[in-house]
């Protein structure tokens, strides 16, 4: 299973390294979202700094949708999905591989967005490790749910419109937890508040990773 995970993740990341879709389209999209949020809130820097945690995570959620769409679409052409199914790879490995690839791209995006939030909104971060841990945990949950929902909506002609609608409400707990942890880690927050939310993220990740490992094979038969 682990070997298959690395194979599939390597394949997706190689595709990304050669096509640079996430880098040249999804990342700029995230930055555009940050700029638009700033326009929506007005030039009040204090207000932007207050809203920064939530805006960061909303931008991450939007980028997740894009990254998952991309992760699904690389399999949709030339019967690639059938090829993967025929390859005899373990479905759990397939799921974990796709998840790892999406997560790796999201982590890079998040680093970029975090820098953007600090520079553009003037957010001051006091406890950086809390931010890093929340981003890693949140990313695992987002990538796992995204991969699951991507598989569920793969092959649907209405995938582009349906996937965000199905995925975004499911990951609402990640948005809530991530925002709270950031607030706790920023200047004026109480870092102790963050630990409870970290637990929630761990539970969310565990539930959806476990679910994905178990049901990813059967899901593929529905597409």
């Amino acid at each position, binding site marked *: 299973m682990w070997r298959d995970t690395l194979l599939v993740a390597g394949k997706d990341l190689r595709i990304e390294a050669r096509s640079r879709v996430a880098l040249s389209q999804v990342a700029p999209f995230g930055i555009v979202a940050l700029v638009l949020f700033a326009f929506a809130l007005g030039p009040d820097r204090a207000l932007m700094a207050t809203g920064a945690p939530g805006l960061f995570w909303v931008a991450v959620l939007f980028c997740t949708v894009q990254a998952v769409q991309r992760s699904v679409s690389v399999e949709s052409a030339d019967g690639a999905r059938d090829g993967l199914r025929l390859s005899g790879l373990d479905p759990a490995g397939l799921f974990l591989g796709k998840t790892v690839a999406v997560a790796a791209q999201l982590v890079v995006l998040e680093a970029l967005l975090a820098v953007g939030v600090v520079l553009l909104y003037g957010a001051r971060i006091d406890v950086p490790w809390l931010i890093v841990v929340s981003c890693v945990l949140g990313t695992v949950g987002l990538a796992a*749910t995204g991969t*699951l*929902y991507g598989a*569920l*909506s793969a092959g*649907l*002609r*209405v995938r582009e419109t*349906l996937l965000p*609608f*199905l995925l975004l*409400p*499911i990951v*609402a*707990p990640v948005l*809530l*937890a991530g925002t*709270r942890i950031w607030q706790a880690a920023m200047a004026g927050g109480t870092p102790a*508040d963050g630990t*409870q*939310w970290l637990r*929630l993220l761990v*539970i*969310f990740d565990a*539930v*959806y990773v476990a*679910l994905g490992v178990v*049901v990813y094979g*059967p*899901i593929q*038969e*529905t597409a």
Partner: protein
Amino acid sequence: MNPNQRVRSPLLQSARARWTVRIIGIAAAVATAFTVWLGLWVTPPDQVQGDLVRLVYIHPGVAWVALYLAFGLAAVASLLYLWPRTRSLFWDRLAAAAVEVGVVFNVCTLISGSIWGKPAWGVWWAWDARLTSTAVLLVLFLGYMALRRVPAEPEVRARRSAFLALFAAVDIPIVHFSVLWWKTLHQGATVLNPDLSPTIHGSMAWTLLLSFVALTLVFVWMLLVRYRIGVLEDWLGTGELDAALRERQAEGAAPDPAGDGSEAPAGAPVPEGVR
């Protein structure tokens, strides 16, 4: 395939089953009428809330049906569909019917809650944990209905929908706790402390109980009717309509007085229960 096989389902086959549905419908109507009468005329107004308290005969009952009965049933039915031993389109259609009726009740919960909230708390909407969870639940199951509308073979659609219901069902407790903490960590005391006196008795308690029974009956009736429609929709969608039409044409051609031997095309019989 013989169209009768597709339509075979316990709720369509027998006249007795159809009568049961009808009787449940009548019982639901009678119980609802009694609740309205008791709730609007017989029970006294509340000391604190006045006539506003009469919403207690609608709102909790509707919420009970939407949040527990309908979505609980949908989750269980979806699991039973996914479980290989109990896999049957019966569970899929039951889940779909429960979600659809549940969404209606969920919207009624939010509307009746809003109507109550405006005079009682001064706002149409409060970001309270319960309200927020209810709204998220509504969105999750609207997604379920959207996925079901994507055209597909009934078996494929059933698997897809059941997986989606499973993913959503495991999310509900997490959403619940996260919005609970979100709220409590955000501000200490909430405005939404129940201001109903903890003990309500006499006619009010009985009316409240009756409202739960009435709304549960309404739910069961709507569920059965929706299930029936679901079966008929699948039957229509899988092309047996053509067979039925040919059968009809054959009936029209049979008593042909000229007797020119126009042959009736071989058509499948109209299944029982689809008249």
